[in-house]
């Protein structure tokens, strides 16, 4: 189970505690979303969380400090999840070095296509960081092969065409993508975008190696941060075989 949260929402100080709650609730990996002013791939829930986080003083540098704070008490894998421009401005070399020191395990830049990934991948890999790329139902076989080539750690499958956000049923495009991607890689496959209920998680159990819950977690934190652990537990129930929804 992979949980995404927007780092710094509602405040930078709150993030390490929220990550601990997600871990207690059963998350096996955390995507630390670094807020960006113009998140073209995100729906309103994550957009607004990003606005709040930026207003609260969150920067890439600050997120690395949060990661270091989390590392003091937890070994949960941490993936930086953001857009290219904040990373470019920080500098790839400096980011790679500082991320390693902070205890970050990998990085996903939503708007870096495999065509534009060369420099970024070589700098991150040289530092020992994983680079995760997105595969979409609309990706051609050629592109899936490139995604496999440039990804390490795992491959992030986008369950449907669209932006991030919760939805009632999983897209019919999700399963064919899993089968297609399997042919190109032995890496673990995680599926995200639109996964928000225990029923979604149960549907994917055994079919992918991990599921990513993002907007639903961010919304939970927005509404009731104290309930984050319980919410995460409810989503991981189906994976423990105790769920009968």
């Amino acid at each position, binding site marked *: 189970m992979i949980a995404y949260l927007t780092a710094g929402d509602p405040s930078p100080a709150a993030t390490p505690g929220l990550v601990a709650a997600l871990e207690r609730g059963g998350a096996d990996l955390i995507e630390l979303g670094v807020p*960006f002013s113009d998140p073209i791939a995100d729906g309103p829930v994550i957009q607004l969380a990003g606005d709040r986080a930026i207003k609260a003083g969150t920067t890439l540098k600050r997120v690395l400090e949060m990661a270091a704070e989390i590392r003091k008490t937890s070994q949960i894998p941490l993936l930086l999840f953001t857009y290219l421009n904040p990373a470019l401005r920080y500098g790839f070399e400096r980011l790679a070095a500082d991320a390693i020191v902070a205890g970050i395990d990998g990085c996903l830049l939503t708007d870096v296509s495999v065509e534009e990934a060369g420099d970024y991948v070589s700098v991150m890999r040289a530092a020992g960081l994983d680079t995760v790329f997105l595969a979409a139902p609309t990706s051609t076989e050629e*592109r899936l092969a490139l995604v496999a080539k440039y990804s390490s750690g795992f491959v992030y499958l986008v369950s449907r065409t669209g*932006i991030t956000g919760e939805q009632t049923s999983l897209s019919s495009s999700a399963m064919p993508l899993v089968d297609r991607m399997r042919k190109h890689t032995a890496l673990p496959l995680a599926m995200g975008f639109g996964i928000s209920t225990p029923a979604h998680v149960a549907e994917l159990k055994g079919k992918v190696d991990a599921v990513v819950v993002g907007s639903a977690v961010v919304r939970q934190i927005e509404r009731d941060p104290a309930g984050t652990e319980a919410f995460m537990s409810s989503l991981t129930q189906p994976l423990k075989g105790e769920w009968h929804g």
Partner: protein
Amino acid sequence: MIATQPDAGGHFGPYGGRYVPEVLMSPLEELQRTYDEAKQDPEFHKELDHLLRTYAGRPTPLYYAKRLSEQLGGAKIYIKREDLLHTGAHKINNCLGQALLALRMGKKRIIAETGAGQHGVATATVCALFGLDCTVYMGEEDMRRQSPNVFRMRLLGAKVVPVTSGSRTLKDAISEAMRDWVTNIEGTHYLLGSALGAHPYPAMVRDFHRVIGLEAREQILEAEGRLPDTIIACVGGGSNAIGIFHPFIADEGVGLVGVEAGGRSMELGQHAVRFAGGLPGVLQGTRSYLLQDEDGQIALTHSVSAGLDYASVGPEHALLHDIGRAEYCSCDDTHAIEAAVTLSHTEGIIPALESAHAVAETIRRAPLHPGKIFIVNLSGRGDKDINIYRENLPELDRL
């Protein structure tokens, strides 16, 4: 020195490219394939030329502004009258081209962003012309200041969706249009309105506007028997500028001047001067100069002209800037409005606020260059800006 062309990945030197979420790669590849095929197809060009002549009103005149030139006492000023095109600006050139491509792809739904509303109106117009469903995203702030264009789009049958995120201007409208596209790639074409965004848009939009420069070249040769010394155009995303510049890039004697929006001041957030005030970065699919803070967050911008109020600039302009082939300067809100008044009084032409920035730079330079020939691209007419001119010229209401 030859005209700049992007490489296969859409790079203009270190700029351009295709920086989008994976989901958008397939519609971009489809668009590129369709455009590459259309470019080779004489029927496509025949149909587009026919529409440009019979529907849009091409060729537009190259007009010698005698009174303005004489009053300034320097360069001879010619005005390329894109403001006389149907819908009131150059934007229709690109909209007709992309609408034909949408038809080729069998896409029946068009989405677009708009800043000043000129691209939105041109998009709504071509959608009406071809019977396509049309949705235009427009920042709430821009809807307020360009309300006549909002009504025009609705009258043409388009749906105008207010964008309330970020600065509520052009940048946010583009993000919202991209989100729509990501969600509805099947059957939807994103009719991007400037020489911006992911490959193939910057080169494709430029190609559809090259007609401006090609005509101007022929017209100035006929009028003066030689090429101009300087071409001046305003630069928001930069589509009208690249359209008139491009056919002259190989002519080293022709100076190319792009005018950005100086807004209220040079403080970050108060202007849209990307070259002097920004640094290379990636926004909305392309790498170019970008107004941003030290954390890589995109800065807010301001210009009295909604069409120039954007944090980035087309990637080909970034290359032309770096290699020194074009020069980029800025004009603030006040000088743009003054220039609009001058042009109105001397030539009987009310320019769009965007184009008024280019006119202002022309007025500033002309006295310094006697004997030279200038062409200023008057990219749009001022009807849509009447309310803003009125707010800024209250004395005219008291007469």
